[in-house]
């Protein structure tokens, strides 16, 4: 999935939480979501972009006040496209 498509999916989830859609270079907090909304979005992102083994819980320790959407989308992309660890 392309990065812009991923951002569009995230923005759809942000709209559902009454937040404001954001651009790649905006911070997540620019969406205006409250703290519950941010948690819900992060939980939804882990479902939308499921991680392979070694990246499980990849959004649990992000710097919420400072992370940009570009960084966030990058993390989702890396986590969901990395090959699973070798057996």
């Amino acid at each position, binding site marked *: 999935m392309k990065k812009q498509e991923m951002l569009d999916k995230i923005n759809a989830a942000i709209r559902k939480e*009454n937040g404001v859609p954001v651009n790649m270079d905006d911070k997540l907090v620019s969406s205006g*979501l*409250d*703290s*519950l*909304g*941010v*948690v819900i979005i992060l*939980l939804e992102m882990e*479902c939308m972009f499921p991680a392979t083994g070694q990246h499980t819980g990849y959004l649990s320790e992000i710097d919420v006040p400072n992370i940009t959407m570009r960084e966030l989308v990058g993390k989702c992309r890396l986590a969901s496209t990395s090959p699973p660890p070798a057996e």
Partner: protein
Amino acid sequence: MQISEYESPSGGVATKLEVFGGTFNIELCTLDDIDPHYEKVKHWITDMKPSAYKARMREAVEIGKAFKLADSSSFLYYILTNPQIGEGVAYYGKGNPLGTIAMIIAIFGYLDKRTFAIRFALHDGKSIDEYRSIITKSSLSRYITSGTHVMARTDDLIKKYKALVEARGEEWA
């Protein structure tokens, strides 16, 4: 997700909810909680006397509509204006959003299924932004244009959280 009951140290039955990889204990607030909880929210209450605000908190405790996480990192007090509609009295959960979601699941998914909506009249020091994810879109638009109260549909919140729990592969208890 798992839900169970236990005897609360402060008396009464409390609820233990295991969800989103965490364990959350939800208890009824007691009269002893009112002062410390008021201290956490008082800077937002600039348009009401402390005694009047605490009297509403006391009313919520007395009718059994005041709940908290055991560590008091989140709490919700409400009273009933109609058998199925509540009026928010005190709502706090900024420091523990995941716990706040768990508390909402326990209250409106299990302990009080009758109340399906809660109205919040925002105090002068409160921002609408702190309510965005729990209120309805229509009440958000209405608030922006007219500054009236906002409404949380608790039945819709439970549906949303249920979908989220199930999407994560957990079974709704």
